[in-house]
């Protein structure tokens, strides 16, 4: 729901408990700024989250916030959306929340094309419980439950989201706030289930990604790859080649809009 008279701030009064320099501050700043600039009304906007570092964001807004239980942000958001078409519903949750415990819900909200915007703050670890491997952790990631190195390949979230028939799928990263902002605008404007994977590595448990300029090369697939983002199979093929972190070239982070129905 847009608010016509005055632009109201989305900054909440509570101080985040995130670590100093956490990449989530970047996402929060970009999102709050955008919502205000796009005239969203905090009194008609609901942030829904699960449990984890990123999920605390629903308590740090001036909008309505639901900090729910682990993995279940999407069903709650579905209930709000289906019962009220006049409020904006944003799901902000982590990679463990959305793709481990809550993966079953993602499938169905996407399949049903529920009109919500899902942001995955993907830090590739369970940070709040002090570093266990998550579904998006890289191969060989040394989590506290997998001290010898995690022996599973990471889930390619964008490929998965396209397979589930999400109607908008993109990836961005907190390393490039401008690209992040453009991607969020597209996701918010999209009618239907939209998903943005936001690579936001954990400063405490993934220090190898910092400083980013030296470690990671960010590649915009919309500029470098030939594919039709309106075509399901073309988009899926492109997304399937754009896993992050990839075992072969872990320093390459492919971003961009992969699919838009």
């Amino acid at each position, binding site marked *: 729901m847009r608010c016509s008279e005055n632009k109201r701030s989305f900054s909440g009064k509570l101080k985040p408990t995130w670590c100093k320099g956490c990449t989530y501050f970047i996402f929060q700043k970009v999102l709050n700024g955008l919502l205000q600039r796009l005239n969203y009304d905090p009194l008609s906007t609901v942030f829904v989250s699960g449990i984890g570092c990123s999920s605390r964001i629903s308590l740090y807004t001036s909008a309505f916030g639901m900090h729910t239980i682990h993995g279940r942000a999407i069903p709650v958001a579905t209930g709000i959306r289906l019962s009220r078409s006049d409020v904006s519903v944003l799901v902000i949750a982590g990679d463990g929340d959305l793709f481990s415990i809550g993966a079953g819900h993602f*499938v169905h909200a996407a399949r049903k094309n529920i009109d919500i915007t899902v942001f995955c703050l993907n830090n590739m670890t369970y940070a709040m419980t002090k570093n266990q491997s998550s579904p998006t952790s890289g191969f060989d990631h040394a989590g506290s439950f997998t001290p010898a190195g995690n022996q599973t390949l990471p889930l390619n979230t964008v490929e998965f989201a396209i397979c589930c028939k999400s109607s908008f799928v993109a990836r961005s990263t907190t390393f490039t706030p401008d690209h992040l902002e453009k991607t969020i605008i597209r996701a918010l404007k999209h009618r239907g289930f939209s998903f943005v994977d936001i690579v936001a590595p954990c400063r405490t448990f993934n220090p190898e990604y910092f400083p980013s300029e030296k470690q990671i090369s960010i590649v915009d697939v919309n500029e470098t790859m030939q594919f039709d983002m309106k075509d399901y199979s073309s988009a899926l093929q492109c997304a399937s080649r754009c896993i992050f972190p990839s075992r072969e070239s872990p320093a390459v982070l492919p971003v961009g809009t992969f699919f838009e129905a």
Partner: protein
Amino acid sequence: MVLLTLPYTLKITGCAGEGVICAGEMLLEALSRLGFHGAAYREFPSSIEGGYCAVTIQISDKLSYLPVNNIDCLFVRYIAAVEKEIGHCRRGAVLIYDDSSQCSEDELLALLKKLKRSDIQLIAISLIESGNDPGSKKFYSSEILGVVGRFLSIPLSNLEYTVRNRFQYKNLSTLQRNCDMVSRGYQIQQGSHYSKLPLQDKKPFEYEILDGNEAVARAAVSVGCGFFSSYPITPSTGIGNFLARVLPARGAVSCQAEDEIAAIGAAIGASFAGVKSMTATSGPGLSLMQEFLGYASMVELPLVVVDVQRPGPSTGSPAQFAQEDLFAAVFGSHGETSRIVLAPDSIGNCFNLTIDAFNCSEYFQCPVIILSDSVLGLTKGIIPVPERQDVRIINRSVVSGECKETYGESTAGVSECKDIRGELNGEEFKRYSLETAVAPIPVPGYSSVSCRITGLEHDEYGNPTDSAEMRTLQQKRRMNKLNLIETMFPSLVEWDYCTDEIDFGLIAWGITVAAAGSVVERLRSDGFRIAALYPRLLFPVCLNAIKRLQSMTDHIIVVESNGHGQYARLLKMYADVKPHSILSQTGSPILSDTLYDSCVRIVKGCFENEML
């Protein structure tokens, strides 16, 4: 012609797919047109065709009588059904059997002799449809209706009207064939055994035929439920079937979720959005919902959860009966939660209690669990349904705002909303104020303030807190806010007593009340002085009522269909009562005759426990 006495119980048996249940439901409709009360209890296997299938019709002159009496008349097509049901038949009961199927008179007589039941009166009939044409199976229902209707001397015109009503949307030839079969069944000779039911003066058409699931769903519609989500599970599916047809036409939402966790999650989301919401499930689904139930208690959102109980643990017996989920409903989910557990005790009460459940949940801002069961849920009854304007509705107190027009009809009422903008003076709104039991709820898109809610322990503003003092205060407030429930909703406890001087007290809950009611009458006519207490409010325990019963007698019997004596144990825990338990785990409701014998044994045997 024999004049039958009421209540009269008739059971039609057969194989699934033979139209037995359809015949029973049509008989109930014909009876309602003659002014009778009654109920039709369905038993079916977990399969679509084949397997034992039966419908028990209780004909009564009293409201919402449930089939808990022994059988007066049994209709069978297979000899196996006689072996299965004969133990439930009264002495001198009538047995109508189809001698064209697998029942021969010689075999039957031999069996009855072996079972020492030569008191049974036999009526042989030949159903035309049992012949060689397998495709004609679907017309059994009308033919059986004709046979049973003739036995009870129901006018053929009434039966034909019922058949036309039931099959009105089928094609013409099916409709005509069914009409032919009902009159064919009516013409089958039954010797001299015809009976007659006493005339009723109740005006027909003031009542509706609904099963317990439909009654819950009807009530949800009447009370303004705007959102329903569920996952299919026997025996609760009927609630979703009903609401999926009815809610969308009223601008409300019915949604099939991907699992029970999502079902309750979506209902909680809708409640946060200001809409009255409900979900329905059975045992396994209730287990999956526990974490979200704790969340709803913690964030204090109104929510109604219907658990249509079936025997457990695990998958258990999906199509059978038990009252085993009380502990799960009261104590399920970690930590200590504030919630309300209600149990309807008749089909009619499924309607009224669902209204109460919504009202309690809106008023106290907490989840309310309705413990229905498979028998209540699947039994069709002739019940009164109040007009919408006669239903007492309580809406949650919400924070008001400017844009009332966006706040639709299906959402909570705006009558009790509170405009708190002037009082805030720039301070944050106290969603969980310690000064009141419950504070108004801000609603997105409507209220002038926003709020953030969390399952973390929180302070008055809803912000997470580590303060041990705040945790203690908030937890106390959440627990104590329910203290007034018994006083505020007196209809949640039902009494049946004549005098304060009593020999013993009887407590029953849920469908067990139906059997208990008739047992109390019989015991009183035997000279016992009894007070009966039928709590519909199971948790928090109705301490006022229990204390009153305790002041009258030390001997209290609790009847329930589970093995632990779950309600009796709740009473021991919360009211320091030491009741005697009558328990049953048979998969069917306790029959009144069995309960009577058991009560007598307990009273004469100086009060011990009894497991049936």
